[in-house]
């Protein structure tokens, strides 16, 4: 590990530990659905926020660690004020530990996904501001036009901060006042926030692809920028597909429907390039980063198809508020974001494909597929019975119980796969043997 690369690698190690802990709390939470009262010391009201916040921390810390690593290599200049990266890391780890402690003590106060006391949002935002400053000062020295991934990172970094601030506007009475406004603003911010970290992760995926193939062309192509513009438009306007049933102005929801449907273009393009990827997959099957990128493409196609279908209001009527939404969220955060970030982590660490990694990869993807299918089935049962019958909540959930149990069992497999991969990645990141190649 070189001195300059140390903050990036430690960011990634912290991110991987957050993922492992988040997955552990996810297993506890899923079993609390199946066996009420299990693990009484950490009830569901605590295990859920611990799971969600830690997994979200993995995504943005994993992406940020990659940016700190790749940026000096892309711009061919050292990171501006590397000490700021250390401060950023210290702020994130310190605040993360305080957030975990507040959850374990039952001290909440925030809204879904950011349930910690809102005062803890301040150091997170300060840490992010350090990234904003460091990123733009470093990229200012970049010669020539920016490739698409730099645009994606810049957009993701700026919009993460803007939407993170927007997600806390409810603290001002003028921005709440009724449940329609509360929910609409919450999901406006969350939809765009998710879009912003997707920009960070997909930008990272593009860099990994470029470094594996050695071809700088695709990231500078017209197609790359058109896809970026499409993603940006969805980040800005697509959020209202989360709130079709909320009685906000109908134009907001119709606009989101129209914007969301533009993503079919993305899906068609992905399927068309599938044959090329399959060919490359055969050649590069011994490369760990490539194997994860390949898996991420499978998950992108599955999840994008699901996302597009549930963005059609007539279908959303049956799927909204059910486990199909959870399947979409899990498929995106684990199937797409986590596999892209693993590709990046393994590229940076130079980890080789060993027996442990191979087993971890298979267990992870196999369990995730079962997990995803069980959630879809549970959601289909819940959605159909909720809309078409007058059954109460608990009898409906009893009908869905076999699928909920299947999802909890698959969660254990997922946790085992992640444990093997996280261990392999951390060992490689902290090893001095793999740190010499410029990636």
């Amino acid at each position: 590990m070189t001195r300059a690369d140390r903050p990036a690698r430690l960011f990634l190690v912290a991110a991987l530990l957050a993922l492992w802990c988040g997955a552990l709390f996810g297993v506890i939470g899923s079993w609390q659905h199946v066996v009420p009262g299990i693990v009484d010391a950490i009830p569901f009201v605590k295990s859920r926020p611990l799971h969600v916040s830690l997994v979200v921390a993995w995504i943005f810390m994993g992406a940020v660690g990659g940016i700190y690593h790749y940026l000096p290599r892309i711009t061919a200049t050292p990171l501006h004020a590397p000490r700021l990266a250390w401060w950023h890391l210290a702020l994130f780890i310190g605040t993360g530990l305080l957030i975990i402690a507040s959850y374990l003590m039952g001290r909440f106060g925030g809204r879904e996904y950011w349930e910690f006391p809102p005062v803890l949002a301040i150091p997170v935002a300060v840490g992010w501001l350090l990234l904003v400053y460091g990123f733009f000062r470093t990229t200012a020295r970049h010669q020539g036009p920016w490739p698409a991934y730099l645009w994606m990172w810049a957009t993701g970094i700026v919009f993460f901060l803007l939407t993170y601030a927007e997600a806390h506007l409810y603290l001002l009475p003028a921005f709440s006042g009724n449940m329609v406004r509360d929910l609409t603003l919450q999901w406006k911010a969350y939809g765009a926030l998710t879009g912003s970290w997707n920009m960070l992760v997909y930008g990272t995926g593009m860099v990994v692809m470029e470094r594996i193939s050695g071809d700088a062309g695709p990231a500078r192509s017209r197609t790359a920028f058109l896809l970026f513009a499409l993603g940006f438009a969805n980040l800005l306007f697509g959020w209202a597909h989360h709130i079709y049933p909320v009685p906000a102005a109908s134009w907001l929801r119709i606009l989101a429907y129209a914007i969301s449907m533009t993503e079919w273009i993305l899906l068609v393009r992905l399927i068309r390039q599938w044959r090329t990827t399959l060919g490359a997959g055969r050649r590069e099957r011994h490369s760990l980063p490539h194997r994860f990128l390949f898996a991420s493409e499978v998950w992108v196609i599955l999840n994008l198809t699901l996302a597009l279908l549930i963005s059609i209001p007539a279908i959303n009527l049956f799927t909204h508020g059910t486990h199909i939404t959870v399947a979409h969220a899990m498929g995106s955060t684990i199937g797409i974001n986590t596999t892209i970030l693993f590709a990046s982590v393994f590229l940076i660490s130079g980890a080789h494909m060993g027996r442990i990694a191979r087993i971890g990869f298979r267990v992870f993807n196999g369990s995730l597929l079962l997990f995803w299918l069980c959630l879809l089935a549970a959601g289909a049962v819940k959605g159909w019975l909720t809309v078409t019958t007058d059954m109460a909540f608990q009898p409906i959930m009893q009908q869905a119980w076999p699928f909920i149990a299947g999802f909890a069992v698959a969660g254990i497999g997922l946790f085992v796969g992640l444990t093997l991969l996280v261990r392999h990645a951390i060992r490689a990141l902290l090893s001095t043997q793999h740190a010499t190649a410029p990636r």
Partner: protein
Amino acid sequence: MATATGPSRVKAFGARHRRIIHLVLVVLAIAQSAATYTTATTVREPKAAYDAAAMRGARWYREFNCTACHQFYGLGGYMGPDLTNVISAPGKGADYARGIILHGTQRMPALGITPAQAEDLVAFLRAVDATGTHPIRHVDLTPWGTYRSMHDDAR
């Protein structure tokens, strides 16, 4: 590992076009945000606006992390039922809600909520109930993939 210096046969997309597209998108997003913060999310029914008690109830809802298990309009956790219309649902109502908030159920633990906090939470649930109906059980689909009540601006 190869570095990113390979040949590119793809024409670079004009920076000027990109700037214009992004600028237009950002201006539209600002306009949409302004509408979302104001006119697009006002409520017609006066009972739906939070009074002081409902405002406190919204805070207790966050402080006790009720969203971990419950939903409004299908948004929130999956362990317990959706609470959008718990006040007006047949067989339920304010007393029913108050009892569960204070004492819990077989599946929901008693969270140590005081009677005063329970009143605030009931006031909050009452305001939420006045905003609309969820879930939508009257399925009336259109050829455009929407459903009719989605087009009703019933605020």
